Each structure stands twice: as structure tokens, then as C-alpha cells.
């Protein structure tokens, strides 16, 4: 493990295995707990369905309402840009698809490398902008906790190291590829214990919201 190739083989072998184990175990504990605890039984007569409004709200709450946009346009626009950029980079870069094939056994079509490259560059800039905004905004600065900065760091590092690896800006290549995979391992380990869990829970929460309103027969 002391040399670049040994390091690469460790991070993409035992390192990734441990990270995936912690990620899957931690996330399943949380999600199963959330579902099993559920909500109090509602004895009131339902005035509408739960499933339809639940799924509808997953979509509608994903788009900021005009009031939110007017109050915080930067959050909405830059937030959307980097989230979409992150997903494109993660899911549509062909070497990443090969990684998913290796782990999950399924694959899908990818995008040409230059497209993913451009998206990555935009995503990196957008993430840097969010950090600058957080550090300068008088309110955000005060309400930010160490966890916020930790989450920003573990999200940013895979993009940065991936960009450096793709453009082969660090030699030898096994070192930077290893650092890239290590940063992803770190992301996976931190995931279940921080607000990164919103990747799953945000949609569950939106569904619950929609379902509650749907049952009451009102728009959410």
C-alpha cells in the first residue's frame, strides 16, 4: 500500500468494500427505522388517496415555489446546477458506468467524455460558489455547523480529484486515481451519518407530506 499502485489496489479493493459496507449498513438501518416507526394511526375518515398525491408532491416540492426563488435565487439556481452536474458526472461518465456494472451488475448508456468533462468543470465552479456564498452570507455564515463544511468537503473532493485524474494533471496516474476513489470511499463512509442521507430521505419526506395532504383531501 506504500506505493501508488498498491494504494490504488487497496482503495478500489478492500477500501471500497469497507466503505460500501458502512454505507449500506448505515443507510438501511436509518431507512428501515424510518419506515417501521411510521406515523400514528389516523382514525379520521380519509378524504382522498395517499399514493398519488405523495408521488406528485415528490415532483412538485423538487421545484422551488416563486416565493423561495424570489427570496434566495442563488440557492435555487446554483443548487440545481451543481446537483444536476453531480448526477450527470456520477451516473453518465463511462468509467463510472463500468464501476456500477462491477458493483450492481447493471449498466446504461453514457455521455461522451468531453460533455461529462464540461459538466464537471461547471459543477466544481458551482460548488466553490456555494462555499463562498456560505462564508459571506451573514445568516448562512452563522448557522453553518462543522457538519455543513464536512459535507461540502466530501462532496467536492471526488469532483476535484476526478477532474485532476481525467486530465492527468497529477503523476503517476495510479496515485490520483487512487485519491479519487479514496475520496469517494470517504463520501460513502460519511454519508449515513450526516445530512447526505437527504439523497434518500428527502424523497421519503416529500412523499409523506403529499400523502398526509392527499388523505385530508387538500392540495400540498
Amino acid at each position, binding site marked *: 500500500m506504500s506505493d501508488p499502485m498498491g494504494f490504488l489496489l487497496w482503495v478500489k479493493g478492500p477500501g471500497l468494500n469497507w466503505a460500501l*459496507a458502512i454505507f449500506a449498513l448505515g443507510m*438501511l438501518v436509518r431507512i428501515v427505522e424510518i419506515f*417501521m416507526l411510521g406515523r400514528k394511526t389516523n382514525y379520521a375518515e380519509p378524504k382522498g388517496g395517499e399514493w398519488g398525491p405523495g408521488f406528485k408532491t415528490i415532483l412538485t416540492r423538487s421545484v422551488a415555489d416563486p416565493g423561495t426563488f424570489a427570496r434566495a435565487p442563488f440557492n435555487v439556481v446554483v443548487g440545481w446546477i451543481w446537483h444536476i452536474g453531480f448526477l450527470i458526472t456520477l451516473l453518465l461518465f463511462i468509467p463510472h458506468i463500468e464501476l456500477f456494472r*462491477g458493483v450492481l451488475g447493471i449498466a446504461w448508456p453514457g455521455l461522451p467524455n468531453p460533455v*461529462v468533462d464540461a459538466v464537471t468543470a461547471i459543477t466544481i465552479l458551482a460548488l466553490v460558489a456555494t462555499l463562498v456564498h456560505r462564508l459571506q452570507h451573514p445568516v448562512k455564515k452563522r448557522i453553518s455547523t462543522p457538519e455543513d463544511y464536512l459535507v461540502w468537503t466530501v462532496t467536492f473532493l471526488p469532483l476535484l480529484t476526478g477532474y485532476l485524474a481525467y486530465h492527468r494533471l497529477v503523476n*503517476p496516474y495510479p496515485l490520483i486515481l487512487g485519491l479519487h476513489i479514496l475520496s469517494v470511499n470517504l463520501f460513502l463512509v460519511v454519508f449515513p451519518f450526516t445530512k447526505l442521507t437527504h439523497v434518500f430521505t428527502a424523497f421519503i419526506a416529500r412523499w409523506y407530506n403529499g400523502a398526509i395532504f392527499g388523505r385530508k383531501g387538500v392540495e400540498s
Partner: protein
Amino acid sequence: MAARKTLGESLREHGVSRRGFLKFCAATASMMALPPSMGPVIAAALEKARRPSVIWLSFQECTGCTESLTRSHSPTVEDLIFDVISLDYHHTLQVAAGAQAEAAREQAMKENHGEYLLVVDGSLPGPNMNPGYSTIAGISNYEMLKEAVAGAKAIVAVGTCAAFGGLPAAAPNPTGAVSVLDIVKDKPVINVPGCPPVPMVITGVLAQYLVFGKLPELDEYHRPKAFFGQSIHDRCYRRPFYDKGLFAESFDDEGARKGWCLYRLGCKGPSTYNACATMRWNSGTSWPVESGHPCLGCSEPKFWDAGGFYVPLSAPLGSPGSTLLAAGVTGAVVGGVAAALAKKRATTAAAEREPVTVEELEQKL
């Protein structure tokens, strides 16, 4: 025995023309990434160089490295430069056998003590392993290496086995195989890995040593930067297809026929540093990627244990799918038990709730 003739004299005896010799020197200069003006300097240095004694030890190896060397398509100057170094001991290539061969080795070591170049191919069982795993004339590889290293000026570890342990050291490494560099700490060691190495790289390293009288600039794996300074990927003629995102997905699809990038078929070119893409094989005819096969990464450490040859570089090692499943199931069970316990606690608390009235409380107070 190291003859006292200079290389120039020896080459003329072998009928190598001045023109042919200068062409070789120019090629050597370009191989070593030196300016063309270095060609005549190399020629002058080689002309005057004494034939150095070379002792070649073969340990746990397959003779592929020697096979590679002998494929240096004669008659070229690469072949001849090997004629004109004094190769005093080489199992495969020497005529002598048995006691005579060993006597030749001992004599060369004695006569050229402190001066000879030691070339090693193959890994060797580690010092704490059973020496019987690999012996020559009843001498363990470890003992023979120690003895030969003592009088060597420099050591060239040829092939991935000598440089990094190679196949014998692959998991579970039954003979406890180690590389030359694992043993030799007090002498200069040049690694020329590859399974096998490009022949011109072997001769190039020796030529550089003859010309400059010193070791070439090495990378952190002790590989000469002149040949191992760039990755296969960076010099690959299929690189534009990678950059465009055009990949062959099987060995017989349209992409393969059109010569697209072999990344998805397991090419290890991005992480492999070697000269195949520029120097090519068999008299510059072709090289693995050009023939349609992904690079195996044979000049890198642990290449046998680095996952399947046909598994893409970005794919994980081991079986992460089952790890994910096992950890997920465990997590679900743990989460389920935790939630059930919490629910039970809530139900018990509700059942055991003892309501008190205000009057009762006031009485207690």
C-alpha cells in the same frame, strides 16, 4: 570474459558500417528523449567504451524476457551491441553447461570485481523461505544473488518478476517470492519491467549506461524515465476515441472493428507506464493495443493481482455486490430490531402509565 577491445573496434570487426552505427546512436538519443545533437556524442562515447562484463542471472522466471531479447530482429545494431558487451554468464544463451558454466560465472565475477553489470530476470524466494524452491547448481537464488551483487557495479532487474515479484509473487505467493529491490539495498538497481520488456528498452538502458557511465534518471519504481516516463494511454494512437467517448464494448462489435478505445474491454493503459505505444514490438510492426487487445498493465507492480485482464480499470476488485447486499441485509435487520424495540418501549410505557389526579399529587406534596 570482458575483452579489452573498444566497442568501435568490435563493431567494425562485426562488419557494422559507420552509417549503421550512427543511425543506432541517433535512435538511442531519441529513445532517451535527448536532443538529436546528442547522437554524435553517444557515438563518440560508445566508440571508446570498453566492453563491460555482463552477468545474467535467471531465477524464478519463464525465459520470456530472454526470448524477448533474442527477438530483437537481427541483424540490427541492437543485436550487435549485445554481441559486443561481454555476456559472460547467461543460462539460456551460453554454450557452457554444468560446472563449466558456473566456473565461467565465478571467473567473470573475480576478474571484473566491482565493475561488472549484473542483470537479473525472475523473482527469488525470500530470505526466510525454503531455499529449495529455486536453486542453480545447488546454490539458492538468494545466496547467488548476494554473492553476485557484492562485486557488481550496478544491477539491472529485467522483467516484472525481477522488478516487482511478478507472477511468482502473485497471491498467494507460495514461494514467498520477492523482487531484486527487496533484497538489494546498497547498490544501484534499475528496474526494466514488462512481461516481457520491450527489447529495445533493455538494450537502450545498457547503451545509456555505456554512454554516460552512470545510471539513467529513474522514477519512484526505479524505472528509467526515458522509457517509462509516459503512460500507454498518453501515447496511445486510440486516445482520440477515448477523448470522444467512443469505445469498443466487445471484441467483435462495430467499435472493435473501427479501432475504437479498448477501455471498456479492460485496457490498463491509463495506469501503465511503458514504451510499447512508441517503440512497438517486432521491429516496430505493432503492439498489443494496435492488434486489438487491451493493455494488461504488465510493467506495473502487482499486475497479476490487479483484477481481471478484461475488467475495466474503474471496476472494483473483489465482490462488492455481495458486500453491499450482506451489509444492506444486516442494516435492515439492525434497523428493524431498533425500530421494534423503540415501538415496544412506547407500547410498554403507554400500558404501564399510571395516571394521577391533581388531588393525589397534592396529597403527596
